[in-house]
């Protein structure tokens, strides 16, 4: 018998949560381990290298602050998009989703601007341990931001085709959970790299 079961919307009786949501949280748990490993390595290296970041110069605190503000705004827009799609407000939901994509892209543009101010001056991952950590942490984080932008773009185009509504707003919730996680990671990377 071939029964079509909407697995994403199904709930496990044991947890009471939709399988898709529980799956996303388990994925995020594995991502926590990934970034925690990188951050732990950074902390150990930071304590063992008193000359930090070294004579090559410091990062621009204000660009980092601007990027943090941008990601905080994007977290607000994505949660508003979810609220609007759940309430059936398609147009407003699409707009908030678009803002999330724009803000995420702005974050990457600023990050690219920062990289372009360092790389041509010979400040490379191989320059010293600080810059190795900087490029590794921000590079992996940037890739995660890019992944979030692609997911939100896919949702935006579906919404433009009129294929998003209260019944499948959970997809925005899943993308939103990932986006908020990426934001939380940056909330720790920003002070560690730019402020301390």
């Amino acid at each position, binding site marked *: 018998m071939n029964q079509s079961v909407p697995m994403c919307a199904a709930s496990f009786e044991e947890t*009471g949560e939709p399988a898709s949501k529980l799956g996303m949280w388990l994925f995020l748990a594995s991502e926590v381990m990934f970034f925690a490993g990188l951050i732990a390595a950074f902390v150990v290296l930071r304590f*063992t290298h008193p000359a930090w970041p070294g004579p090559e110069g410091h990062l621009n605190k204000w660009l980092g602050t601007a990027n943090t*503000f941008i990601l905080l705004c994007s977290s607000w827009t994505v949660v508003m998009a979810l*609220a609007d799609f759940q309430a059936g407000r398609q147009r407003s939901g699409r707009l908030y989703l678009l803002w999330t994509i724009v803000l995420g892209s702005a974050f990457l543009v600023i990050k690219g601007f920062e990289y372009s101010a360092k790389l041509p001056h010979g400040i490379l991952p191989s320059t010293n341990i600080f810059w190795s950590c900087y490029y590794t942490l921000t590079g992996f984080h940037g890739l995660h931001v890019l992944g979030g932008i692609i997911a939100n773009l896919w949702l935006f185009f579906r919404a433009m085709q009129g294929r998003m509504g209260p019944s499948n707003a959970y997809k925005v919730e899943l993308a939103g959970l990932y986006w908020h996680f990426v934001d939380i990671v940056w909330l720790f990377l920003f002070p560690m790299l730019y402020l301390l």
Partner: protein
Amino acid sequence: MTNAQTASKTYLWIWAWLAGLMLLSVVASELPLAPRLITVIILGFSTVKALLVALYYMHLKQDRKTLSFVAVFPLLVVLAAVLLVASSRLVKL
């Protein structure tokens, strides 16, 4: 006021708190205090911001405790690993 309006208002308030705490972190980094104290203050602010995002934007406050457990468990594992390494006589930091 409907539930949706209340939720939207809450989201905006959380955003304001997040932005405010971010600015306080930047200001704190300029204060003439002991580096260790500044580190504690700034990472404390980061922890509060992460909690606000997780509780309100990721809806852990209203979701079942199962998801909170899934979210907290890896952090406990990491904490245990860090404490193990930091307390080990075999590892010199």
